[in-house]
Structures are given as structure tokens and as C-alpha cells.
């Protein structure tokens, strides 16, 4: 009898939990109805996970102002955005608006992207992505790579005002590093060891700073280019060697922790770190000193690349073109993109709340963080070397992790890097474009 009672109690508890689940489903449905009654409901995939909170707040305000219900989804950090998007398409439930990397636009555009040419914002940017005569990608922001400096930390040691343009060449940079070491900052440099930093940010500069990046990469794929003898490769590797020499994590460089490196830079324990304006979201978590900024990678060169950052449009948005999205939803999505560019509230969201460098010439961006401000200054002065978006998909893991990490740890030399990268390109799959 007792057993029976216990069993009954369990059944009751389990059924109650089922009812509870049903109840919550009902709640979701009723909130869906509310959205329908105010108009249209759209979904957004946000793959810039660091601005998810801002996105969610914006969605509420946007709904209150425009009557369009906006649901913002945060991209999973433990899988690739492209595979997440593919899952949604496989279940015939795509996001109305999807934010991906430039690379993904090329693979997704033909199948899923709505043609955005003719939209009002299109005339305010040169950074949109066109695939097969279709304007498929809306540039969400501008991001660039270079050396991040902490001017306060430098000035504290040298006692002089720091002018980043005074260290354009490697010789100048070397002299400054020696001065910092002599002044007591024994290890003034931090290098992020993550494969994406080495393989998607640092090494691609070798291609991006060539006279014709596309021809050069095709030459590598065809096996006709001599990487070891290439001037640009050697100039950039000279600089990298200098960075390695002064790296605070020398000895276990390939194991350096991103958070720790950013913290050291923020607090002025180190003066320089290779990175981009996205690193601000990590740096600002710490007790940072005021005068940070970005400068081009110092190189002993005459081609002018040491006066420019490398970057451009980053994080692209496409609007779903499939039948799973209704005409009303699509129109709401297009309105949302125009709101970002042409509405004061949209501008504030981009530049002040998310602290992003806008990709549009009609958006005022005076209230940016120090790194983004540097990027904007270089962008406004037309001093950005464009990103190269057609590197083979496994470039980042093979070149970044298997080759450059070894070089960072001084386990192989420059000639071996050139040989291994050349060998890699022999078997790499080219990206059609």
C-alpha cells in the first residue's frame, strides 16, 4: 500500500511538471499573439555576442516606438555561426535578419539573401557586399587591426608625450621598446596566442598588404609564389620577431591568456598588444588607464602600409529571402536597417550604446571608445587597407594554430614558416568568388 502511495505521488508530481510545461508554452503563445496584434514580428541573430544586452534593450524600445516585435537571439559561442544558421534553415525557421561574417555572406547569399540594392542606406556606404550582382550584405560596423597602445604606460616610463606616428618604422619601434625596457618595463608587449588572432588577423596581412592580394593568394594556391623571398612577408615577420622578443609571455607564449594580456594592457603593465577595436570589450572590463589607441603595425617599409590599419566592414547582415519569411516581415527588416542608418535613435544605438564604428558616411560618431575612435580616424582619412575575405576556410586553424603558434613559441624559424604555409596552400581548397 505504501509503495502504491509513493508511486501515485510520483505520478502526480510528474504530471504536474508536464502541466507546468504546458502552462509556460501557453504563456509564450499569448505573448506571440500580443506581438501580432501590434503588427509584425521579426527575429535577429546577433553574432556580436558582446553587445547582446544592448540589442535586447534596443528591441524593447524599437517595439514601443515602431510597433514591430523584435526577438534577438545570441549566437552560440561553441559552434560556428554558419552552422547555426544552417540549422535554422534546415528546420525551415530562419531568422528574418542574420548577422554573419563577410566570408559567410559569400556562401549564403545565393541561396538565402534578399537583394538590398536600391535601399536608401546603400548610397551611404562603399562597404556593402555584392554577390552575383545582388547587394547581399549590410555592413554592421567597421573594424580594424593594428597595434593597440597604452600611451599612459609609455609616458610614465619615458617621461615624454607619446605620438604614435613617431614609431611608424620598425627601427623607431625597436628604439622605443629598448627605452621602455631600460626604464623598467621589462616586457612591454603582449601577443594574443589564439589561432584566430594569428591565423585570421596577423598572417593575412601578408596577403592584404601585397599590391594585388587576390593575385598573390592565387599564386600561392598555384604554387608559383615564393613566400620566403617575398618582401612583405619578411617585413611583417621582422616586426613579429620584435614583438616576440619583448613578449611578456615569452617561454609559454602559445599559452598566453587573452583576458590576462588585455588586463595587463589596460592597467599599463605592458604598453603594446596586437589586436583590433573589438578588444575594447575585453579591455574595458578592467581598470583601464585613459589614453589607449590604435596605430598601424610598425614596419621598415616604403610601401606606405605602416601608415594604415588593416580592416573595413565587419559583421554583415543579410535579410532572409526564403518563403519562410512573409513580405511584411521582410519589409519590417528593411525598415529596421534603414532605421539603423537614417534615424537618430538607430545611430545612437550603433555608435553610443554598442560603441561601434559606423560603416556609413552620414552617421556622426563622436562618442566612441578610444580604439574605435582611432579606427574611425584612419577610416575617415582613407587609411584602411581592405580585409581579404577569400582565404580558404581552414587557413585560420592550419596557419594560425599549427604554424604561427610554433613560430610564436620559437619552435620553428621564419624559413620553416614559409615552407609550411607554402605546403598548406598546395592542398588548400580555393574559395570561389
Amino acid at each position, binding site marked *: 500500500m505504501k509503495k502504491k502511495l509513493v508511486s501515485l505521488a510520483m505520478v502526480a508530481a510528474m504530471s504536474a511538471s508536464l502541466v507546468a510545461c504546458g502552462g509556460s508554452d501557453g504563456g509564450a503563445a499569448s505573448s506571440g499573439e500580443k506581438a501580432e496584434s501590434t503588427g509584425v514580428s521579426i527575429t535577429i541573430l546577433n553574432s556580436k555576442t558582446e553587445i547582446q544586452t544592448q540589442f535586447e534593450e534596443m528591441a524593447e524600445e524599437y517595439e514601443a516606438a515602431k510597433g514591430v516585435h523584435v526577438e534577438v537571439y545570441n549566437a552560440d559561442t561553441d559552434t560556428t555561426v554558419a552552422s547555426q544558421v544552417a540549422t535554422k534553415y534546415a528546420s525551415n525557421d530562419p531568422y528574418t535578419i542574420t548577422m554573419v561574417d563577410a566570408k*559567410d555572406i559569400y556562401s549564403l547569399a545565393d541561396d538565402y539573401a534578399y537583394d538590398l540594392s536600391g535601399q536608401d542606406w546603400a548610397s551611404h556606404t562603399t562597404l556593402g557586399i555584392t554577390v552575383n550582382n545582388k547587394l547581399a550584405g549590410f555592413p554592421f560596423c567597421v573594424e580594424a587591426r593594428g597595434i593597440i597602445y597604452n600611451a599612459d604606460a609609455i609616458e610614465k616610463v619615458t617621461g615624454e608625450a607619446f605620438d604614435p606616428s613617431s614609431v611608424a618604422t620598425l627601427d623607431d619601434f625597436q628604439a622605443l621598446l629598448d627605452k621602455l625596457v631600460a626604464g623598467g618595463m621589462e616586457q612591454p608587449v603582449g601577443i594574443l596566442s589564439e589561432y584566430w588572432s594569428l591565423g585570421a588577423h596577423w598572417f593575412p596581412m601578408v596577403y592584404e598588404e601585397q599590391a594585388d592580394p587576390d593575385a598573390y593568394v592565387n599564386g600561392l594556391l598555384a604554387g608559383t609564389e615564393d613566400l620566403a623571398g617575398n618582401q612583405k612577408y619578411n617585413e611583417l615577420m621582422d616586426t613579429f620577431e620584435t614583438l616576440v622578443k619583448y613578449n611578456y609571455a615569452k617561454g609559454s607564449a*602559445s*599559452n598566453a591568456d587573452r583576458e590576462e594580456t588585455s588586463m595587463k594592457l589596460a592597467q599599463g603593465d605592458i604598453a603594446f598588444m596586437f589586436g583590433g577595436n573589438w578588444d575594447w570589450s575585453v579591455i574595458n572590463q578592467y581598470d583601464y588607464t585613459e589614453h589607449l589607441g590604435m596605430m598601424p603595425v610598425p614596419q621598415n617599409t616604403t610601401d606606405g602600409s605602416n601608415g594604415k590599419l588593416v580592416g573595413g566592414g565587419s559583421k554583415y547582415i543579410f535579410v532572409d529571402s526564403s518563403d519562410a519569411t512573409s513580405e511584411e516581415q521582410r519589409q519590417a527588416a528593411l525598415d529596421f536597417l534603414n532605421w539603423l542608418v537614417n534615424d537618430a535613435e538607430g545611430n545612437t544605438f550603433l555608435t553610443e550604446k554598442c560603441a561601434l564604428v559606423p560603416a556609413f558616411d552620414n552617421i556622426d560618431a563622436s562618442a566612441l571608445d578610444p580604439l574605435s575612435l582611432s579606427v574611425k580616424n584612419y577610416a575617415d582619412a582613407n587609411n584602411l587597407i581592405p580585409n581579404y575575405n577569400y582565404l580558404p*576556410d581552414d587557413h585560420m586553424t592550419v596557419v594560425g594554430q599549427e604554424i604561427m*603558434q610554433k613560430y610564436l613559441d620559437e619552435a620553428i624559424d621564419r624559413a620553416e614558416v614559409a615552407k609550411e604555409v607554402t605546403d598548406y596552400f598546395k592542398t588548400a581548397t580555393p574559395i570561389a568568388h
Partner: protein
Amino acid sequence: MSYKLKQYLLFAGVSTVIFACVVIIPFIYGLYLTFTSWDGVSRSKPFVGITNYVNAFADAGYWTSLGRTFIYSAIAVILVNAVAFIIAYMVTSGIKGQNFFRAGFFVPNLIGGIVLGYVWKFVFNKALVSLAGSISSGQAKSLLATETGAIAALIIVSVWQYAGYMMLIYVAGFMSVSEDVIEAAKIDGCTGTQSIIHISIPLMTASFVQCLFLTITRCFMVYDVNLSLTNGDPYGSSALAAMHVYNQAFVNKNYGTGQAEALILFVICAIIGGIQVYVGKKGEVQA
């Protein structure tokens, strides 16, 4: 409808449908995808025959990672079971507070692999490095920064994670050995060690078969700890087979090849698991 079929549908119908939906159909669909050059995203899935298998066999990185997985699994399986057996013996030998110890040893299993990896990463990179630094008063290198060190770290964490779970199975094994037999052995003059070797272990074969099977399959398929603890660093030297397969499919966007490599991994795993269970079962002793 025959009576037998009715009975079957009544008792196992729902489970069969669910099993087919979540295991059989995805498996067959996965098998189909190994014959396409799908990139994981686009709508078209061009049929390419056995190209993906040819690519998988030619992928040197895959075989290197598989070789690494064999070494990792061999060492981890032995250590997990040795440690699990020893602690199981300890917590069944009647020491004070043995239930508390049982619970304590089991706790690591309750922590998810990803979290556990990050926690241990901190231990290896920070706690142990500063401890070693203060002892040797010099710059110590993290275990995770060297190629063999990273694999060793993976093994240490796996042993820490799995030993408690396997301990439970061994505890059940120890409990199932009849007191009478041990008693009889004692009367016959058996020492403690002798009675473990000659009485307990042969009677616990079922536990060994189970534990070995579980650890072998878990070690071969490990991904979460690998991702959060080392992410393949340094230089991709600690990327185990599952991580290589994942990167091939989703990072390098060679979904077909990745799927083919996953299938090969499955077959290898099934063969090893099958042989181990077959051999183990044959050796089982009835009391």
C-alpha cells in the same frame, strides 16, 4: 495483427519510434551525407560518391589525431580504472565516513565537461605555475604550454572526472561478492591482497567489463574537456579525433569529409568496444 506484434507495440512501440527518430534515421542521414560534398550550409548537396572517404583516408591530420586519441585513451582507461578500483576498495572496506567519501569522489561527474575544463585550465595555468614558481623561485612553464604536457593534463582531468563514476560500479561489484566466500577464504588462510586478487576480482568481472567499455567509449569520443582545456593548443598538438572531426566539418566547412571521418571513428570505436565486451564476457565467473 498478431498477438506478439500487438504486445510488442504496446510495450515498446513508443520507444521504438523515438529510438528510430533520434538514432537510426539521423545515422542513416549522416551516412548519406558522407557521399555528398555539402558544405554544411547551402541548399545543394552534390553527390560525390566515395570521395569523402578517400579524402578522409588521405587526411594526415585525422590519422595523427586518431593516433593521439589511442595513446590518450590507453593511458586514461588504465588510470581511470586503477584509481576507481582502489578508491572503491577503500570506500567498501569499512573506513569511517565511507558514504561521505563515496559522494565526494562522485562529485566531479556532476560538473559539466566545459566548466570543468575551464576550471582546470585556471589550475594548470595559474595556481600550479605560481606554486611551482614560488618553490623554484623562477619562471615556471604551464603544463598546457608543452605538447606532451597538454596531453598529460587531459589525462589527469579525465581521470579526475571519470574515476568517481567508475568507482560506483566497482563499489557495486565489491558489494556483490558474497561475504561467505571472503570468510571462507580467510579461514583457509588467505591474506587481504590474496583474497582481492583470487576471490574479489574474478567475481567482479562484470564490473570490469562495464567500466572498461564505458571508459573506452568516453575517452574515444571526448570533446568538451578537450575544447575547454586545451582547444588543441599548443600547435594543434592536443587535438583529439572528435575535435579534428568537428573542425573539419564546421570550421573548415568540409561537412562531407568530417562526417566520413566521424563514421570511421564510430566504426573503430564499435569494433574495440565489441571485442572488449566479448572477451570480458567470456571471462566472467559465476560464484
